[in-house]
C-alpha cells in the first residue's frame, strides 16, 4: 500500500475510535480524574492529611496488604485446584465434555452476590458441612477458587488442545518419557497461557468486592471494600479517594503485566487447526483419573449452588415456596419496595446496558482489529482499564464526578452506563479476535466481485462476527444483571437491582429476610444461567480471550 493511502486509511480507522474514546472519556477518565483530584488535593488542602491519615491509621495499609496476599493465595490455590481438570479437558475426550465445559463457566459469570450467598449458606452454621467458616479468610479463598476455576480450566485446556502434537511426538522420538515430554516441552510451551490465566485470576481476586464484603464481615477488607466503607459508612470521600488511587496504581500495574503476557502468548504458541491429541482415556488408570477429576469438578462447582437453591426452598425448616411468595410483599423490616420489583428493575437496566456496551464495544473492536501499532495498544489498555479498575471505583467516581456539569447522579440512566462500562472490555475481548480473523483478502474478494465499499461491511464483516456479537451481548447482559460494585454506590434504595436488593436483605437480621435473599439469589442465578446458556449456543467457533 502506498504510504499516503495508508495514512488515509489510518485516519479513517481513527474515526472508529472516537465514540468509545468519548464514552470512556466522559464516564471513565473524567470520574477517575475527579477521584485523583480529590485524593491528591486532600494531601495539601485544609483538611490536610487524608493521605497521611490513611497511611498512619492503617485502613489503607491493612487493606492493601490483605488485598495483595489474599489475591496471591487465591491465585495459587486456584491454579493447584483447577490444573488437573485443565489437563483432563485438554487431553481427553469423555461423554458430556461439551456440556461440562459450558457448565463450569456458570460460576465464573455468576454475580458475586449469588456466590457469596451460596457460600454463606454452605459454610454457615446450618450448612451441610457442619462447619462455621463465616468471617474466616477460608470462606473468601474457597469462594475465589470456585469463582475462577473456569478461567484456569478453559484457557489452559484450550492451550493444551491447540498445542501442535508433533512437538511432543518429536520429544518422544528423541527419547523423552511421557512425563519428561510434558514437563520439558508441553509445560514450557503452554506456560504463557498459564501465566496469562493466572494473572487474570490475580486481577479478579485483587479487585474482589462482593465476596469479601459479604463473607469477610468487618474483619477482612480489600481495597475495594475499604473504598466502599469509607464512602458509605465513614462518609470520608477524601479517604475513599486516597484508597481508590492506591487501587488504581495496583490494577494498572497488573494490567500492563497482563497485556505483556498476552502478547507473548500470541507470538509464541504454535497452533494447529485441528486438535488431534485429544482422545478417549485408554487405560483403566486413565479412566479412573478422568472420572475422578470430572466428579470432583461437578461436586465442587455444583454443591454450593445446589445448597443455595435448597436453602431458598426451605422456610421454618420445611420445604416451602414461601420465601418466593414473600418477595412480592413489602416487608417493613426489609426494603422500601417489594423485593420482587428488583427483578424488573434489573432487566430494565440490563437491556439498555447491553445495547450500549455492544454498540460502543463494536466501534472499539473495529478500530483495534484494523490497527496494530503503538496507538492501538495504548487504546487497548485504556479499554481494559474499566474491567480492572473495578466496578467500585467506577461507582465511586460517578458519585464524586457526575454532579457537574449536569447532575446525573440521581438519573437512572447512569446505572446502565456504569454497567456498560464494566461490560465493554468483555465485548471488545470477544469480538476483536473474530474481527481480526477476517482477512483483508475477503473484503478485497467482495470488492472484485462487485460489492460497493458501503456494502462490504454488511455483507462480509457483520455476518462473520454475528455470532461473536451475540456472545458479547449475552455476556454484557449477564454482567449487567449481576453487577454489584458500581451499583452499590449509585443504585437508589427505592429502585434496587437484584444484587443490591440481595445485599440489603442479607444485612437485616432474621431468618425471613435471609430466606428472601436466598430466593432472590436463586432467581438471579437462573436468569444469569439462561443468558449464559444462550451464549453457549452461539459460542461455537467464537474464540474469546477468556
Amino acid at each position, binding site marked *: 500500500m502506498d504510504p499516503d493511502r495508508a495514512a488515509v486509511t489510518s485516519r479513517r480507522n481513527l474515526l472508529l475510535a472516537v465514540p468509545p474514546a468519548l464514552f470512556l472519556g466522559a464516564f471513565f477518565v473524567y470520574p477517575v480524574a475527579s477521584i485523583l483530584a480529590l485524593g491528591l488535593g486532600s494531601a495539601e488542602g485544609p483538611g490536610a492529611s487524608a493521605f497521611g491519615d490513611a497511611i498512619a491509621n492503617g485502613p489503607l495499609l491493612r487493606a492493601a496488604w490483605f488485598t495483595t496476599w489474599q489475591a496471591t493465595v487465591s491465585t495459587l490455590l486456584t491454579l493447584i485446584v483447577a490444573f488437573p481438570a485443565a489437563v483432563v479437558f485438554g487431553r481427553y475426550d469423555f461423554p458430556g465434555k461439551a456440556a461440562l465445559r459450558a457448565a463450569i463457566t456458570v460460576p465464573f459469570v455468576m454475580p458475586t452476590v449469588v456466590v457469596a450467598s451460596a457460600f454463606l449458606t454452605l459454610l454457615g452454621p446450618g450448612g451441610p458441612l457442619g462447619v462455621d467458616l463465616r468471617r474466616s479468610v477460608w470462606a473468601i479463598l474457597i469462594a475465589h477458587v470456585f469463582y475462577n476455576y473456569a478461567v484456569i480450566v478453559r484457557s489452559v485446556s484450550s492451550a493444551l488442545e491447540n498445542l501442535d502434537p508433533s512437538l511432543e511426538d518429536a520429544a518422544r522420538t528423541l527419547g523423552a518419557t511421557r512425563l519428561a515430554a510434558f514437563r520439558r516441552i508441553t509445560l514450557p510451551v503452554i506456560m504463557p497461557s498459564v501465566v496469562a490465566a493466572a494473572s487474570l485470576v490475580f486481577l479478579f481476586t485483587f479487585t474482589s468486592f462482593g465476596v469479601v464484603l459479604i463473607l469477610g464481615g468487618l474483619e477482612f477488607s480489600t481495597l475495594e471494600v475499604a473504598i466502599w466503607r469509607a464512602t458509605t459508612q465513614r462518609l470520608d470521600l477524601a479517604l475513599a479517594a486516597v484508597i481508590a488511587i492506591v487501587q488504581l496504581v495496583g490494577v494498572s500495574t497488573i494490567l500492563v503485566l497482563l497485556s505483556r503476557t498476552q502478547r507473548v502468548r500470541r507470538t509464541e504458541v504454535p497452533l494447529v487447526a485441528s486438535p488431534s491429541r485429544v482422545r478417549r482415556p485408554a487405560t483403566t488408570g486413565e479412566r479412573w483419573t478422568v472420572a475422578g477429576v470430572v466428579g470432583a469438578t461437578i461436586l465442587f462447582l455444583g454443591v454450593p449452588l445446589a445448597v443455595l437453591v435448597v436453602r431458598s426452598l426451605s422456610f421454618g425448616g420445611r420445604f416451602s415456596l414461601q420465601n418466593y411468595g414473600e418477595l412480592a410483599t413489602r416487608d417493613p423490616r426489609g426494603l422500601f419496595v417489594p423485593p420482587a420489583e428488583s427483578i424488573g428493575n434489573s432487566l430494565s437496566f440490563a437491556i439498555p446496558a447491553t445495547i450500549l456496551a455492544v454498540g460502543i464495544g463494536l466501534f472499539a473492536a473495529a478500530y483495534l482489529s484494523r490497527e496494530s501499532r503503538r496507538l492501538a495498544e495504548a487504546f487497548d489498555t485504556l479499554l481494559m482499564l474499566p474491567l480492572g479498575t473495578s466496578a467500585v471505583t467506577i461507582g465511586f467516581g460517578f458519585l464524586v464526578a457526575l454532579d457537574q456539569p449536569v447532575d446525573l447522579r440521581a438519573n437512572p440512566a447512569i446505572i446502565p452506563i456504569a454497567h456498560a462500562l464494566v461490560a465493554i472490555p468483555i465485548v471488545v475481548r470477544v469480538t476483536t479476535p473474530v474481527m481480526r480473523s477476517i482477512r483483508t483478502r475477503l473484503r478485497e474478494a467482495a470488492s*472484485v*466481485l462487485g460489492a460497493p465499499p458501503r456494502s462490504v461491511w454488511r455483507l462480509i464483516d457483520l455476518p462473520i462476527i454475528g455470532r461473536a456479537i451475540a456472545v458479547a451481548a449475552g455476556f454484557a447482559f449477564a454482567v449487567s444483571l449481576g453487577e454489584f460494585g458500581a451499583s452499590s454506590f449509585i443504585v437508589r434504595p427505592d429502585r434496587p437491582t437484584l444484587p443490591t436488593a440481595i445485599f440489603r436483605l442479607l444485612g437485616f437480621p432474621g431468618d425471613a429476610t435471609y430466606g428472601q435473599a436466598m430466593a432472590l439469589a436463586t432467581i438471579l442465578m437462573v436468569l444469569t444461567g439462561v443468558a449464559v446458556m444462550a451464549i453457549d449456543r452461539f459460542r461455537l467457533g467464537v474464540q474469546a480471550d477468556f
Partner: protein
Amino acid sequence: MLQVRGATSVLGGVMVLDHVDLDVPTNSVAALLGASGSGKSTLLRTIAGLQPRAHVTWNGRVLDEVPVHERPFGLMFQDHALFPHLDVGANVAFGLRMHHHPDPASRVAEVLELVDLAGFQRRDPATLSGGESQRVALARALAPGPELLMLDEPLGALDRELKDRLLDELGALLRELATTAIYVTHDHDEARTVADSVTILENGCVLQSGPIRTVWDHPASSAVARFLGYEAEAEIAVQDGIWTTPWGTMRGWGIEDGTHTIVIPPHAVEFSRAGQLAGSAESHRYVGGRAELRVSGNGSSLTGPSDGAPPPRGTRLNFDIHPGSVLRF
C-alpha cells in the same frame, strides 16, 4: 485488449513495481512469471483496482477512475479467500447478486458443473479439500462472466500431484472459455502449460515479454536465461569456426571471431561416445520423468539430457554442443 502503462507501487520505501507496462490481447492467456517478491501479485492488484497508480485501459476504455467493484474483471486469490460464513453456492452467487443477475441459482449450477463440482452448493467451505476449494474459487471468479480473468498463483498451495492434474484442467478450461486471462505464477511449467504469452518480472521490472516459444528459445538477457534455468555459462574463444571451450575444441558456427560469454541450455547438449568435447560426471538427477546429467571441466559445468543409468561420479564423458541452440548476449 488490456493495456497497462506505468504501473508503479512503493511499499515502505521499496519500489515494488517500477513503471511496468503490460499488454494482453483479447482471448489470450498471459502468464506473469517471477520469483516471489518480484511484483507480480502487486501488478494484478493494480489492474484489479485494489491498488492505485497505473494507467489501465480495457478495450479502449480508461479505467483509472473506475473503482474496483465496477471494473469488468475477475480475480481469483492465491489463498482462494472463500467467505467462511457462506456455503459454496452463496460464495459463487456473491458476484452474481452484486451484478443483479436475474437467475443466480441456475448460473451457479452451471459454473459449478463447469469446474466439476455439480451439487456442491450446500457445502461449507471449511469442509472442502484443497482442490475443491481451488475450483470453488475459480467458479466464483468465473460466475459473473468477467471480461478479464486474473488468477494469482491459483495452484500455489497444492501438492504436486493435484497441481499437475488441476493444471491440465485449468489450461483446457481457459482455452475452452476463450477468455482473456492473466495467470500469475512462479512456476515455469505452469506458465508454459496455461499461457500463450509470458511476461517475466524481476524486482518490479519487466525483463522480457512475448510469446512462450520466443521467450524460451531466445531469452533476451542472461538474467532471463538464468531465470529460465539455463545456468550453464561459459567463456569461449572463436577463431575460424573453431570454438575453444572449457571442455575442449569443436567445430561451430554463427558466432564471429573473438571471446564470448555463451549460455548453453540443456537442450543444446547431446551426450555421445563420439562427442568432440569431454568432462567428468558430477551429478545425475531426475526432473519430471527426464534425467539430467551434469558434467564439468576446467571449472565450468553444464547440464544435458541423459538417457542411461547414472555414471559413477568422475567418469569421463563425451558430448556435443549444438551451436544453433547456444545463447549469446
